């Protein structure tokens, strides 16, 4: 099968859907001629024109609010938020308005919009351009949250997001834009709320999101060399969360580590670990381990930044300790 990059997959998903549905527009800073700073949207303005690929001023709350109103009245906007860190700027429009409109209106008004943004540290971009803030939106009822971990998922989840009648937030890890994976030419969708088991195993379950899936897979490979069989699960969407697949896996393996690049404290590893601990309680042989990013603002210095994010090696080490009963 052909291989394309994560960035190209996002681009394809949007282009395909825009060809099918005239109501889809893209709004954001430098999305048109510049194709975004990461060049993920390159070529779209040439095909769809500036009426549908709309460059905005540097007004994140404003254009998010405009997207909410447009979504309520017949368009299906994709909002491009240049950095996930800017989520803090748009929380009101996203969480007080978009997320609640359907409910507050008793089901009369819909807000079919996609917010695509990014996450991920280690690009030496410092504290305001490196955050992974998905936990914040996952906490808000009315929002769906997707975290693709490969080009394949990036395309399938984006297409599903665009067709969803609710506000969906997609976090793309900016370190993965150039990573290639097999992506079919034929159309496919990835259902929300269905986790993917990337690697089956019987000794330990590694639940990982976004780029942490790669780290978990690497750890699983190293573990395999030691005859430890790890099951790697990628939830793909954290809202809705496919609890069943995760719980069933842990019931089988009796051991679990949850890995995510958001801050650990009050982050998504807490939710997933708490659910495992509750629902697989009688099957667990050892305490569920959580491994999120350090609870510090992301430092600029390469000497410090790399220490803040979980790595395959650390996952491997913890897995071994866990299985040895040392955690």
């Amino acid at each position, binding site marked *: 099968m052909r291989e394309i990059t994560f960035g190209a997959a996002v681009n394809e998903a949007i282009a395909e859907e825009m060809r099918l549905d005239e109501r889809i527009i893209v709004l954001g800073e430098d999305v048109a001629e510049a194709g975004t700073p990461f060049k993920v949207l390159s070529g779209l303005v040439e095909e769809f024109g500036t009426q549908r690929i709309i460059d905005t*001023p540097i007004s994140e709350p*404003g*254009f998010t*609010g405009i997207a*909410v109103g447009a979504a309520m009245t017949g368009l299906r906007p994709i909002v491009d938020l240049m950095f996930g860190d800017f989520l803090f700027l748009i929380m*009101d429009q996203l969480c007080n308005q978009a997320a609640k409109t359907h409910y507050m*209106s008793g089901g009369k008004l819909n807000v079919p919009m996609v917010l695509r943004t990014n996450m991920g540290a280690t690009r030496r971009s410092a504290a305001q351009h490196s955050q992974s803030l998905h936990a914040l939106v996952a906490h808000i009822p*009315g929002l769906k949250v997707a975290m693709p971990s490969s080009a394949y998922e990036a395309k399938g989840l984006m297409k599903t997001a665009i067709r969803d009648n609710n506000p969906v937030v997609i976090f793309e890890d900016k370190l993965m834009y150039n990573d290639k994976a097999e992506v079919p030419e034929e159309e496919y969708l990835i259902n929300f709320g269905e986790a993917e088991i990337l690697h089956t195993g019987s000794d330990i379950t590694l639940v990982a999101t976004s780029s942490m899936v790669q780290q978990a897979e690497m750890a699983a490979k190293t573990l395999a060399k030691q005859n430890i069989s790890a099951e790697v699960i990628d939830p793909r969407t954290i809202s809705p969360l496919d609890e069943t697949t995760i719980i069933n896996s842990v019931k089988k393996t009796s051991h679990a580590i949850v890995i995510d690049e958001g801050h650990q404290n009050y982050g998504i590893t807490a939710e997933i670990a708490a659910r495992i601990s509750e629902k697989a309680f009688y099957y667990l042989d050892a305490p569920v381990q959580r491994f999120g990013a350090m609870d510090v603002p992301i430092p600029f210095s390469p000497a410090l930044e790399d220490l803040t994010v979980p790595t395959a090696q650390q996952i491997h080490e913890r897995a071994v300790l866990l299985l040895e009963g040392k955690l």
Partner: protein
Amino acid sequence: MTDKKDNRESYLQMFKQMVRIRAFEEQANQLYLSAKMPGLTHMYVGQEAVAVGICEALTPNDKITSTHRGHGHCVAKGADFKQMFCELLGKEEGYCRGKGGSMHIADQANGNLGANAIVGGSAGIATGAALSAKQLGSNEVSVCFFGDGALGQGLLYETMNMAALWKLPVIYACENNLYGEYTKVEEMAAGDLMARATGFGIESFEVDGQDVLAVNNLTQELVERARKGHGPFFILLNTYRYYGHHVGDINREYYRSKEEEMLWRKERDPITNFTQLLVEKKISTPEELKSIEREIETEAEEAVHYALDAAWPDASEVDMHVFASN
């Protein structure tokens, strides 16, 4: 520009709509005073000419966004009393099945995209509706209602800028009732209020918000121009709320005087003055107008009784409508 509405029918319609708003609000206030209303609510009384003058220049397909003080906009855009009172009381038959309440009442069928409990929070929504209108070629206009207090919210400036850049058919209707909660507008807003919009290249107008005809004439003209792609526009409507910030704000002397309140009620009441005009111009008679008022009051009372007796939403509704189905 006055030709369109310069006839008996439309004048009486504006009269009726203003009276409807006032009748609705007096009932809502009574519901609060008699402890039958869950929570608080914000009365629109005194500002009727703004909502009616503007909404009578719109079609049902044109969109509005409203505020925490939103009953007036909702009635003016064509809403039904029963469904409104049901909503205010949290009943299943309410416009939002009781889930929204006074601060989130929406009436999609008549183009009301909803009240909003975030001051200025609907600036994006109204502007987005105008983007839809332009993009989909619907020829619709949207009106964003907001108070003088909302001039403090940066979101408004961000969205006015985009509306101006993209020539969107949206009208920003700033109801300056002189106060945001318990603070005077001049303590909250530096500079000239009109310049807040002209600074973004938006053509701006000031109008007496107590004069329903003036408001309506201006809005008709702007709506027509907006449909032709000449928008956006900004209107500053000078008006006054007779009651407190919300129904529980009874002792107001510490922030505004009784004399000021009396002056507006006596000399600048939109309904009284319009009544006088209708009679003077021989468009109607005091008797006819009185009987319209009585009819509306009766309708309001009946709607209140209906709503008081109406059913609560079933407990199973609590987790319905979190997500729309696909």
